[in-house]
């Protein structure tokens, strides 16, 4: 890995962290645990297409760890790690099938995988399967949020490519 790539990844991690922290300030819309926009996913989706999987993983996990430290919510760390890992694996597999012009779908799939991971941890923590009743609600919110972040990532990707061509 050369210095330029390292710098870019650091910058992306920083960007994802800022988005993550800003998003924490947005109040919860519905009283369902785990429903959120997941704007930091924009950066992850962008990375999945533009960097190798190991590099994306580094970016993702440093964002999750630092995000949990900054927000002071270490309880949420396990949910983030489980959701993030599942989301990452799903997206890395799917990106071989789905090309860049359908980035929004990758993001939706990632969001739904993220929700499944979250619920799995919740089941383990509570030692009760009753929380699975929340999964469909999370899936719907995941689809909407995933579509939004996916479209954002698609736009960012397109613009960055154009910018790179000019410079």
């Amino acid at each position, binding site marked *: 890995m050369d210095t330029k790539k390292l710098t870019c990844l650091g910058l992306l991690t920083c960007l994802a962290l800022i988005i993550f922290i800003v998003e924490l300030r947005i109040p*919860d819309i519905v*009283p*369902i*645990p785990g429903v959120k926009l997941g704007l930091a996913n924009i950066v992850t989706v962008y990375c999945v297409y533009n960097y190798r999987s190991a590099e994306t993983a580094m970016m993702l996990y440093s964002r999750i760890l630092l995000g949990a430290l900054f927000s002071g*919510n270490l*309880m949420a760390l396990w949910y983030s790690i489980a959701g993030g890992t599942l989301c990452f694996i799903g997206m890395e597999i799917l990106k071989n*099938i*789905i*090309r860049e*012009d*359908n980035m*929004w*779908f990758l993001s*939706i799939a990632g969001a*739904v995988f993220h929700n499944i991971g979250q619920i799995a941890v*919740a089941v383990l*923590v*509570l*030692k*009760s*399967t*009753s*929380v*699975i*009743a*929340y*999964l*469909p*609600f999370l*899936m*719907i919110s995941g*689809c909407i949020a995933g*579509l939004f972040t996916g479209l954002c990532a698609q736009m960012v990707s397109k613009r960055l490519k154009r910018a790179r061509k000019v410079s």
Partner: protein
Amino acid sequence: MKTRTVCIIITLLVLCTAAVWCLSVMRPKSGKTAVISQNGKVLYRIDLSSEKDRTIEVTYEGRKNTIELQGGRIHMKCADCPDHICVDTGWLEDGKPIVCLPNRLVIEYENGDIDGTAR
């Protein structure tokens, strides 16, 4: 078929499944026995129709949850947790349990298993 069409179809399928699942979870429950459990263990089994109004306090690692019973209904009155999602959930009405993740507390109707609500 174009990839885009397939993607849209899959997304819509997932959304529809989730919507149907949601509706079946949200169907009002006929059972009137509420179960309060913590960390996988059942603490209370309450027959809501015959119970008189009272509050129940449950502690977990020094943090307190206050559950209120009123007129045959049950809800989380207050909780010592950072997010207060359990309080915001309101009264227990359907297959959607009241969950306090930090304090590992679940309030649900009996037979509130997935099989009972999803099918």
